[in-house]
């Protein structure tokens, strides 16, 4: 349980707390400016560029990188690969925090957060893809919250609530997979409405498929990446099962990520083929597209496969970090770089320092909450009172 005395006795002036404190303070100032002065006071958004960094990074990257929750729970509970069981709770926690922060970031972008329920209960635009994304994100956030409650219940001693949710594990996992499939692809489908604005190399009728497949590899890579950091900074919190299963998780997820990356590479090439966009590859945008395709898809695919074959955890961990970066590059390209590509450079969007600062603030809040939860709740270890086998 959380012991206030214990916390107060510890020195709070650590380098991490200091840096996080400064960033959070900066974020609070930007928050005040945003909600008193409007979007124009803190962003470079315009009518040409209504979606900026908060959508391109906080939302699109946040949702993709939070996919580890459904990927891991599907592997363990639906496909029955129990040797990855220790990765479920950290992945669910990362997913839950990821989605919660997506909603937080969206509140800044959309504004008037007290009207967040309007699209569902007041003015539901049920024919809009955006409505589907909003509904799925809301429902999936609730599912992730319920999936995470066993850890919180064990920490708080709510045995009955915990046991009830544990019995619902399979149902929640299936719901999570369905909702994720829907909204991960729909985030790509949002761009189907803008064929004249998105560069042809990134625009494709298959963009929902690209987004969905890339979310799977983002989830797999994020579990490895997050596990690497957790083993580095929270190793003392881990029990024997977590330490023992580390290799299984890294090699298993690395193998899957390598295979999915190969499939993703193939369908991206199909995308070029079906629209006959080969001639764009010799342009400047084509060069950048090739950097993304070869540098952030083919290269990590190769790295993963080498790591799996040579049994090298280090290579797989680097491949995972590189893939996570690749997902960010891809979402930036779709939402920012290749969007409005025909506009003169004077009309192009570049985020203001306050937009970047707020994104940094949101990531920092996520890291601080993650640190708090894994420090106090049984996420990286089995609670001693609940050691009996459970799903």
């Amino acid at each position, binding site marked *: 349980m959380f012991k206030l005395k214990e916390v107060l006795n510890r020195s709070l002036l650590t380098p991490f707390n200091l840096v996080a404190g400064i960033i959070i303070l900066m974020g609070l100032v930007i928050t005040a400016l945003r909600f008193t002065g409007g979007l124009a006071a803190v962003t470079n958004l315009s009518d040409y560029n209504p979606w900026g960094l908060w959508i391109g990074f906080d939302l699109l990257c946040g949702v993709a990188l939070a996919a580890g929750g459904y990927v891991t729970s599907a592997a363990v509970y639906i496909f029955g690969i129990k040797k990855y069981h220790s990765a479920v709770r950290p992945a669910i926690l990362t997913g839950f925090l990821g989605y919660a922060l997506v909603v937080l970031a969206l509140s800044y972008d959309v504004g008037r957060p007290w009207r967040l329920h309007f699209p569902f209960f007041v003015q539901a635009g049920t024919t809009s893809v955006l409505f589907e994304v909003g509904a799925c994100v809301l429902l999936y956030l609730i599912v992730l919250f319920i999936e995470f409650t066993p850890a919180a219940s064990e920490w708080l001693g709510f045995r009955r609530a915990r046991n009830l949710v544990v019995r619902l594990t399979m149902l929640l996992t299936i719901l999570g997979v369905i909702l994720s499939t829907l909204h991960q692809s729909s985030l790509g489908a949002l761009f189907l409405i803008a064929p004249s604005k998105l560069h042809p190399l990134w625009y494709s009728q298959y963009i929902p498929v690209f987004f969905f497949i890339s979310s799977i590899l983002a989830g797999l890579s994020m579990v490895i990446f997050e596990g690497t950091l957790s083993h580095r900074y929270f190793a003392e919190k881990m029990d024997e099962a977590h330490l023992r299963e580390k290799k299984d998780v890294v090699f298993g997820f690395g*193998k899957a990520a*390598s*295979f999915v990356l*190969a*499939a993703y590479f*193939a369908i991206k*090439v*199909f995308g070029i*083929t*079906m*629209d*006959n966009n080969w001639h764009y590859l010799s342009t400047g945008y084509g060069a950048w597209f090739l950097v993304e395709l070869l540098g952030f898809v083919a290269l990590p695919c190769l790295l993963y*496969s080498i790591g*799996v*074959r040579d049994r090298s955890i280090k290579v797989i961990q680097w491949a995972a970090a590189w893939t996570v970066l690749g997902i960010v590059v891809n979402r930036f390209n779709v939402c920012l770089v290749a969007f409005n590509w025909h506009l003169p450079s004077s009309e192009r969007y570049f985020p203001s320092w306050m937009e970047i600062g707020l994104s940094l603030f949101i990531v920092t809040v996520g890291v601080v909450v993650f640190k708090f939860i894994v420090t106090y709740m049984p996420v990286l270890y089995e609670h001693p009172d609940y050691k009996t086998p459970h799903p």
Partner: protein
Amino acid sequence: MDFFTLQDFYTYTKGIAYILIVATLIGMAVFWLYLTDHESDDQE
């Protein structure tokens, strides 16, 4: 490559796509074997 009709366009793009599909299916199977063949060696 010049296209005069929509059929020209689809004949060309689908033609390439079908070749790629066959190559991908074979390539993915080979890649899976490449990823997993050391596991059978380990078990032996």
